[in-house]
């Protein structure tokens, strides 16, 4: 008589663990850290982890809102180009004399953020009002924004002389690099928004079933619009951090990082078809990819092989998750 009870209990625990993709990810991350610690004497140190934090901060900031976009059933390929465009905008304006004696740097930063908002709004209108598939709409914006970055800068990298601006990408607060603090705060804030607020849950509903959400009275278009605007805004933030790190704005900057961002989000367990995913998972995804890069560099693995390793880890993680889902489905019948 006791056997079925324990069996049921065991199953209950298993199904609870089973529902948590991030637990598996955490396991992967810990295993990665242990392996790299054994292989390299330089790996396990506070300084190295702060290095990793700085290295992933821009991808991390953008991955937060990318998670929102993908959870709501969309995708934003334009983020890397928006990073470059805001970089060139801030660099150019920082070197100009402003009318009415306005201080150059604040105006430049505000304008750059406005450019990001505008790019996001452009994506939002294309997706919600015109009804263009998000993949195609943001692919168009990817090209347009990158083009504008070259047009506005004449193809040249321009330096930024402001010291205060340098704090953004290179400053420290209590011994911790500012980009890392900013990224972690953004993760924490967004995690709370996604879990606890009406806005967050609406995004899960829309990604799960947009038509049912509309018929239940959710303002679907408005919410999707907001998500793309947020994505454009955080790409602009990423652009500012990058420009600050290098004290310059380059039109060719950040090429292809949209794929790293999306890879981190997917690795973190967010479903490309929408409706599922967590901000915590994305943080783990960002950290795993960043730590892997760092570790392989410390081990003097060629950067060509690093690319290969990154792709392999992504496929492995998503493949294992699919396998887990299939096993769970079979157990349920």
């Amino acid at each position, binding site marked *: 008589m006791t056997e079925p009870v324990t069996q*049921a209990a065991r*199953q209950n625990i298993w199904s609870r663990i089973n529902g948590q993709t991030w637990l598996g990810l955490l396991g992967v991350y810990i295993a990665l850290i242990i392996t790299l610690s054994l292989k390299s004497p330089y790996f396990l140190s506070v300084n190295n982890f702060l290095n990793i934090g700085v290295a992933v901060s821009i991808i991390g900031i953008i991955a937060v809102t990318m998670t929102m976009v993908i959870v709501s059933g969309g995708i934003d390929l334009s983020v890397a180009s928006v990073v470059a465009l805001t970089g060139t905008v801030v660099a150019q304006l920082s070197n100009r004399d402003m009318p009415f004696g306005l201080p150059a740097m604040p105006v430049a930063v505000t304008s750059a953020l406005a450019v990001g908002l505008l790019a996001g709004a452009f994506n939002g209108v294309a997706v919600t009002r015109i009804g263009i598939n998000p993949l195609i709409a943001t692919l168009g914006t990817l090209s347009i924004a990158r083009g504008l970055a070259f047009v506005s800068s004449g193809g040249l990298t321009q330096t930024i002389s402001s010291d205060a601006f340098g704090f953004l990408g290179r400053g420290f607060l209590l011994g911790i690099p500012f980009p890392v603090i900013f990224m972690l705060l953004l993760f924490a804030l967004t995690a709370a928004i996604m879990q*606890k*607020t009406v806005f967050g849950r609406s995004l899960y*509903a829309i*990604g799960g079933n947009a038509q*049912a959400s509309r018929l239940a009275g959710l303002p679907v278009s408005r919410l999707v619009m907001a998500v793309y605007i947020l994505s454009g805004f955080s790409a602009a933030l990423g652009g500012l951090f990058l420009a600050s790190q290098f004290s310059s704005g380059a039109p060719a900057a950040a090429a292809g990082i949209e794929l790293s961002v999306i890879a981190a989000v997917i690795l973190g367990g967010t479903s490309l078809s929408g409706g599922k995913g967590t901000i915590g998972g994305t943080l783990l995804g960002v950290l795993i990819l960043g730590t892997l890069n760092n570790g392989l560099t410390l081990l003097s693995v060629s950067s060509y092989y690093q690319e290969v390793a990154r792709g392999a880890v992504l496929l492995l993680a998503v493949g294992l998750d699919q396998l887990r889902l299939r096993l769970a489905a079979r157990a349920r019948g």
Partner: protein
Amino acid sequence: MRGIRKRFSSVEVLKGVDLTLHEGEVLALLGENGAGKSTLMKILSGDYSRDGGEILLSGTPVQINSPRDAENAGIRVIYQELNYAPDLSVAENVLMGHLPRRPGPLGSLLVDWQESYRRTGEILATLTKEIDPRDPVGSLSVGKQQLVEIAKALSGNARILVMDEPTAALASREVQMLFETITSLRARGVGIIYISHRLDEVEEVAQRVTVLRDGTVAGDVPLAQVTRREIVRMMVGREVETLYPARQGVPGEPILEVSGLTRAGVFEDVSFTVRAGEIVGLYGLLGAGQTEVVNALFGANPAHQGQIKVMGKPVSIRSPRDGKRCGIGLVPEDRKREGVVLSMSVADNLTLGNWQAVSSGGVFQPTRERERTDYWVKRLAVRFSRSPDQEIGTLSGGNQQKIVIARWLEAGTRVLLLSEPTRGVDVGARADIYAVIEELREQGLGLVLVSSDMEELLGLSDRTLVFSRGRIVQELDRAAASQEALLAAASGEVTL
């Protein structure tokens, strides 16, 4: 099939089921959702492996371990969701995987289209004359697509056909077409296992009925020897008094007034009134406009012209949000695609769109959420296995539907539009939903019911409006309404 057993982890779904099908016979396989029908059929079709028992064909045991084994044994299943490639032609779908090749050295690479169309035409000719093998399948009506599916089965020389809810998406004329096909298949000696929730259909096509309940056979009898009531008792395991609740109270003030509602090419000049405490039924063949009128009233596909008044006040409804604001709610036709968010929990689906009531300043208040959920779960007798936090997809269709209805009640809806509220819902849960609808009527809501199930429509409605080609052609009150009258008006045999 003899002594079939199947368990999923710790749950035994089939506990030794026997099922016999004779040549040229239609066997109705009945049972509530979860009784084991689908599992049994998936074992027959090789989708699932069995844990015990054997399958015999014409007396000899056969090994069916994969869908291909089943196909070779002449067993074909036509699922509720049709499996076809919409952009390919009828011939390509029917002969999929077996397209004839051209003669000659390169022949194995080239499809012989003439031969494909000829062969498909031959098979189709035995079913219908209205389908051209060259048409893309996606351009056909659902009923014709089903015939294509049957033709596909026949092209493989099927001896046993399993039809899972074949009429769920069909208009009544297409149902008749299907029944004629079934008759001709029987004459050829094909055995058919017919799964349906609609007992009137079962009585029309089947000769024998096998009822499953909780993984065992609850009855196996010739149809001529049982009454409908006895079948229902076998399915449910208890006496179900009447499916339709007794009616009390009289309708009050007009709550919804519609006049001259038009959406060009879809429906025209539709006018009617729904009073508080009244259920108005809308009936029509597929595409006659009744479903579209309901969608327009809610704002899902707004009307171009016409006036809508809710509780005497003219309103403008351009979107579902407008409809909701005016106190109108819609229980949509296709529950999975339009009603519920399958990836979310029962509680989230219940409060979907009503989140301002369970949050403050945009932040959720878990205790208030739990309170509201518990209240509706209790009031509508929603059944689930674990807690309101489990995914809604794990609930039966009937319980999912209760959640969709509860969502509108939570929103304070005054006029509830119900589009096919019991499609794919089993008998037990159906009676529950009818009881809920009746309770809402008594509370003074105005209800509009669109249903292709005539029995349901007649059982619930105070009045029925019959649609034909986008217009209301007849209004029948409760006394005058009958299946014959509805059909006659809907197919245009009666002019006013």
